[in-house]
């Protein structure tokens, strides 16, 4: 490789006392690529984010930013190296206008003598431009963020992180609370961010969202890495199977059948579920 990856993780593990939250995770994030981190609830996704974002330190393994080995002491360190995190609550204030939210905490100012005030024209203009780069035309940057749709709110947070010098953007479950259409909008913003040369880490439990945008997939299950694949090394169905843990899915089918033995409606459901799992397995094998 001519250039080192933006972010490289090698055999990262994390222990909380005797609890092993994460073991042996390896992946990399390149500029202009989307790395998807997939996993069901409790798979270790949040521990993973916290390590990259600098909120926690890894117990083992190495973390490299642009080839340099680093150990983050605090989120501020990560931010200084251009690693920005957009959490699920987005860190926006709903009652405040778009431009105020965009620049909150880092307002551009003008000054005459002792008087310093916000350069509103600039703030408003930049917010509008940056949002336009994400493909959103905000007509009025005075609009309260609370009146935007969920996807647009996401994009305010993403555009803000990108504008303030993020190189790697960590998105924590950005689609989990959204409807089908809004999720599509957010996936579009992820691609926009990628096209602007950012490295994106997209955390999700929905493989259907990850597949269309991802260049690389890291699958976590119960704190273990189930593999780290480039897009051409894996199919969509394999991804879904691996994420759910193939063996566990079959077990679940049996359990459901046992429970459903006495209930007709439930039995019907169990049958459908079993069929679906079978089809999925067949397809996975065909692909191989």
């Amino acid at each position, binding site marked *: 490789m001519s250039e080192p990856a933006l972010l490289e993780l090698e055999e990262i593990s994390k222990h909380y006392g005797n609890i092993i939250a994460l073991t042996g995770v390896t992946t990399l994030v390149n500029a202009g690529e989307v790395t998807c981190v997939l996993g069901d609830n409790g798979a270790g996704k949040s521990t993973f984010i916290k390590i990259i974002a600098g909120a926690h330190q890894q117990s083992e393994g190495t973390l490299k930013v642009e080839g340099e080995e680093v150990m983050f002491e605090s989120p501020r360190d990560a931010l200084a190296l251009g690693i920005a995190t957009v959490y699920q*609550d987005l*860190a926006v204030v*709903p009652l405040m206008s778009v431009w105020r939210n965009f620049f909150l*905490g880092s307002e551009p100012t003008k000054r005459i003598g002792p008087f310093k*005030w916000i350069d509103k024209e600039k703030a408003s203009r930049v917010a509008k431009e940056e949002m336009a780069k994400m493909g959103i035309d905000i007509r009025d940057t005075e609009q309260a963020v609370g009146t935007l749709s969920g996807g647009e709110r996401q994009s305010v947070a993403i555009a803000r992180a990108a504008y303030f010098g993020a190189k790697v953007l960590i998105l924590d479950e950005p689609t989990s609370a959204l409807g089908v259409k809004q999720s599509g909008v957010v996936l579009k913003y992820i691609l926009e961010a990628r096209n602007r040369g950012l490295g994106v880490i997209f955390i999700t439990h929905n493989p259907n969202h990850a597949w269309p945008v991802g260049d690389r997939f890291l699958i976590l299950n119960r704190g273990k890495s189930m593999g780290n694949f480039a897009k051409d090394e894996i199919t969509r169905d394999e991804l879904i199977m691996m994420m759910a843990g193939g063996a566990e899915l079959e077990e679940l089918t049996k359990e459901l059948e046992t429970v459903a033995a006495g209930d007709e409606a439930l039995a019907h459901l169990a049958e459908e579920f079993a069929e679906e799992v079978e089809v999925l397995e067949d397809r996975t094998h065909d692909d191989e």
Partner: protein
Amino acid sequence: MATDVATADVPASVPDERLAYRGPIQRLLVQPEIGALVGAIAIWVFFWAVTVPFGTAGGTANWLDVAATLGIMAVAVAMLMIGGEFDLSAGAMTGATAILVIMLVKDTGELGGAGLSLWIGIPLSLVLALGIGWFNGTLVERTGLPSFIVTLGAFFVIKGAKLGFAKLFFETIQVGRIDEGAGYDFWRKIFSAVWTRNDHIFNSRDIFYVGLLIIGGVAILVGLLELTYKRRTPFNLGGLPITGIGVAAGLVGLFALHATDGIAANFIWAAVMGAGVAIGAYGIALWRFEPNQDRGRLQLSSEVLRLAGIGTGLLALGVVLGLILDSAPKIEDREIVNIFFLLTEQGLRAILFVGLAIAGLVVLLIAASRAKKSSDTSGAALSLYTALGVTVLAFIIRSEAEAPKFRTELFSALLLIALVMATWAVVGLYFAQRRGPDPAADRLGRSLAIGGVLLATLGVVVRLLFTKDSELATLVGQTQFRISILWFIIAAAVATWILARTRFGSWTFAVGGSKSASRQVGVPAARTKTQLFMIVSGAAWLVGMLLAFRLNTIQASTGDGKEFEYIIAAVVGGTLLTGGYGTAAGAAIGALIMAMSQQGIPFAGWNSDWRFVFLGSILLLAVLANNYIRKTAEAAS
């Protein structure tokens, strides 16, 4: 105005089909202080109508004085509330700082204080006041307890300390006197200067203030046109000569109206002036705005006709009842105009007349906005019809009312409203309304409208400050404007600027709106909140100084219980109780409302205890209105 209503149902070339363009009036309605402003105007008109002294310079000085000390605190408390906290010790703190400064500067002796110079005592008391604010803020931040509880504790401590120290050092609960301090003469000018109104006759004042009002009115009109109508580029210079003719006719009418006397001549010149305004507005529109290509045909749906009929009926009923009941014996004695006035036949007549007339006009306006939806022509027709109704009403009031202020001032005001309505209807018919934003036009329109409001306000101030000798006879009390009013204006302006334009202001909204989010993006939440508490205690110090220098002797209980009035003023002004939303200007208007009702009720000859009933109703109404306005404004977007 009817023509501004129907913008929501037009498919516009905006990227998101669910978002329609919001007109300037709708955008204005989202401002948190707009409900309070409307309320303040209504209350002013009410007391102006029912009492003699309220609208005079003396009465104005009287209620402005009350508004000033209340308003300085309300503005600071509103900032704190926007930041998501309360301060229940704010009221007691005003008295405490006043007592503190007296204790610091009073001569040493048997019943004495520390004997410091005011040059030391005043800054020292400020430092101590800021210290209390810092303590309140730090305690709230460190413990995470609700500020309600922490400052309630602070309130009792301060209240007790005031009484305790007063009795300990002075053996009385009255603490005085500040004029014993060194440097009194200098500081009195800062905190207690009085500007006595110029009583001499200002001969050319009529032209002066009427001129200001007219220029202001024209600026507002043009500003609203800029905000509402679609601009053409390049501009059609053919409209300029028409504008010039209109302005000339308006000026000729104005000066001739002023110079001539006699009813007939007055009407002629008033008509010339009115025509000038209308022609001028048309010229400006022709010059700057695009012609309306889609005026549509006159279509009056059955619903519109029914509404118009109901409106006309109500208006006519009001007029007829007013004329019939006119034969009732009149109350000549102004002294017995009291709470029972509304129950006399004369009062009944006034209520029926005013109530029915207002109801009729509102129904007509609704009819106009409905008609506007079918075509611009229909909307304009209904608007013109409503303007005609207003004109008829104006003339009836002119011929029937006994009080001169109804005969002249209300008459002119109604005629002006009718003129603006008619002009607006015609402009709306021939020129295309905006369906999308135009930042340059918005900026120009906003500056013109704001400048117009300022000019018109200046005109009213001039009118109030320079009163004729003949009018002095009706004045009650002294006409002295206190410097506290100036402090109030400064406080409101500075707070408005801080909230709107500074980083600290942005952070105030942020910590009140979502503390965790503002922390995540690097806003120093704890520091911001502590500084807000210090702003409140600093404002309490300022009010304390104003009280100390005004009264010279301070009661130990001064200010106790006032904290809720500050909170009410802020809420009436549109500040959200839960934080994150509101304006300082709104709180200032809230303070004006409270002061007007507090002083207006005794002016009207009613027992001043009624003011609490009034206050409570205003609070409930304001909260309901704000809630409603915000919801409809947001739903309209």
